[in-house]
């Protein structure tokens, strides 16, 4: 067999190979885009689906969780469930809980985190009080009984981190005029998002206090904001200390209340203002 005879089919082979590859790439790019779109869609975690304690941030979680359900199995309170396709909001097969159904009881030994084989639930979480499953928000201040001036206090009483995560802040009841309002107030740095408050809110149907994922519940202060009453350090080292300007001639503060010269007073005999102890050249005495 001569090389010449061979060249024709070989070219055909190459062309076919290239065609096939192009088709393969195109097909897979299409399928990949479809899959990518589906994933971005499925990534949108609904607000009331809370991840288990120690769960990584949602994006990292979806790279880590293999959807094995071991956390679900080891939760003694049946808090956690694996999301079912089309029924639950979170990505199919991933663990979550709904506070109003069964909240997290904040087990001291955190069995769900211990069970997780992948680190999707971060084993660095050793103290359940450090969990950040979400943040409770008193979301309906018109129907919360305490907000109406009654003493329900249930969300406050059930909180495992009572008096730290949630406090009752007293204020005057303007409506009755002589009562107090004990406003349930959540402190996000201490709230674990366990959802016990939401679960036990006495309102029928939806709770007035709800645990929301931090990404929804929390705003973020801009980097350069500074609470002057907490942080007393000057913004800039070596502040230029400009002389304080006193009201007086040569300044724009000519209309200082009470004037600055006896002549300017309605009654010149009146003791008004003060006499500056200095004099700018070329001004009236």
């Amino acid at each position: 067999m001569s090389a010449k005879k061979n060249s024709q089919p070989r070219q055909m082979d190459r062309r076919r190979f290239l065609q096939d590859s192009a088709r393969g790439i195109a097909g897979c790019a299409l399928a990949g885009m479809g899959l990518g779109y589906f994933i971005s869609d499925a990534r949108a975690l609904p607000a009331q689906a809370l991840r288990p304690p120690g769960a990584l941030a949602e994006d990292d979680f979806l790279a880590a969780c293999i959807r094995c359900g071991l956390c679900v199995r080891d939760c003694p309170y049946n808090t956690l469930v694996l999301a079912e396709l089309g029924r639950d909001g979170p990505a199919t097969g991933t663990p979550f809980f709904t506070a109003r159904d069964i909240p997290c009881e904040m087990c001291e030994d955190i069995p769900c985190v211990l069970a997780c084989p992948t680190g999707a639930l971060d084993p660095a979480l050793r103290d359940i009080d450090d969990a950040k499953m979400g943040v409770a928000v008193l979301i309906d201040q018109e129907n919360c009984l305490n907000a109406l001036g009654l003493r329900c206090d249930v969300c406050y009483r059930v909180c495992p981190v009572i008096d730290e995560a949630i406090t009752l802040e007293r204020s005057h009841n303007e409506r009755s005029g002589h009562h107090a309002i004990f406003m349930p107030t959540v402190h996000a740095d201490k709230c674990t998002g366990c959802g016990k408050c939401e679960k036990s809110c006495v309102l029928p149907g939806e709770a007035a206090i709800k645990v929301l994922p931090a990404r929804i519940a929390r705003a973020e202060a801009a980097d350069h904001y500074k609470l002057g009453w907490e942080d007393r350090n000057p913004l800039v080292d070596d502040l230029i200390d400009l002389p304080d300007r006193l009201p007086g001639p040569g300044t724009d503060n000519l209309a200082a209340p009470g004037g600055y010269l006896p002549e300017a007073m309605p009654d010149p005999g009146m003791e008004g203002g003060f006499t500056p102890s200095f004099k700018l050249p070329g001004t009236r005495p």
Partner: protein
Amino acid sequence: MSIKTRAPVGREAIATFGWWRAHRFLILRRLSQMFFLSLFLLGPWFGIWWIKGNLSGSLSFGILPLTDPFIAAQSLIAGHWPELTGLIGALIVALAYALIGGRVYCSWVCPVNPVTDGAHWLHDRLGLKKGWQPKAGTRWWVLAMVVAVSALTGTIAWEFVNPVSMLHRGLIFGMGLAWAFVVAVFVFDLFVSRRGWCGHLCPVGTFYGLLGAKSVLRVSAARRADCDDCMDCFAVCPEMHVITPALRGQAGETPIILSHDCTNCGRCIDVCAKDVFAFTHRFDATDAPARDDRSRSQPASGASRAA
């Protein structure tokens, strides 16, 4: 040779060896599939928690962690380094399949296999056309696509749509609408593409095949000299192209089916009335003479096309 004019597959083997001998690996395979599924169901159904979890990841008897190496690989690609437990689990599973054949997962464990086998059985009964047959390399493209999407989206991409884990997890934890994906696979195999899912698309199977590329346990066409071209093995094999090189090989070429697409399902061993096939290991160097007329008739390419 036309499939339609031929006697039903395996009839000769049943006549020669009896029903059990002509179905043993099929039966064993179904038993194995049921066994692995029921191990996982013991907990949720009967409260016997020998095994917790599912095929994606599990813990047996409180000490033995197992992780799906394909999922672990996607997790790594997505940028997450799993905890040691998960990694060890993936390593154990990967090693096991590397020894016994990656696609043993497909034929002996995977819960979708009975579904696609069922579709194929019905396809046969209805005498449907084989339909769209993707190119041989398609499954590699699909696998590459999954890897790329995992990297780009930073997620374990295939788990969003994987009918294998959806079915398995669904049976154990609750199905939701996941059955729709399983039905889709069934319908696809039945009406769109014969043996299309497992044979051409499923990246799980492709990955496991890769894993078992050098596996020790193999099927060999050891007595290929006795083959009488009844074609039954081609008819039952889910990956029939793997048979040709071994069965039709010249003397001196190995009779061992070395393709990593072979699922080690053993059906060819079942249905061969001439007892050509047997399980062996890849280093088996027993001499296997080819059939004498091999060089003359060359039915190899024609056969695989017909089948």
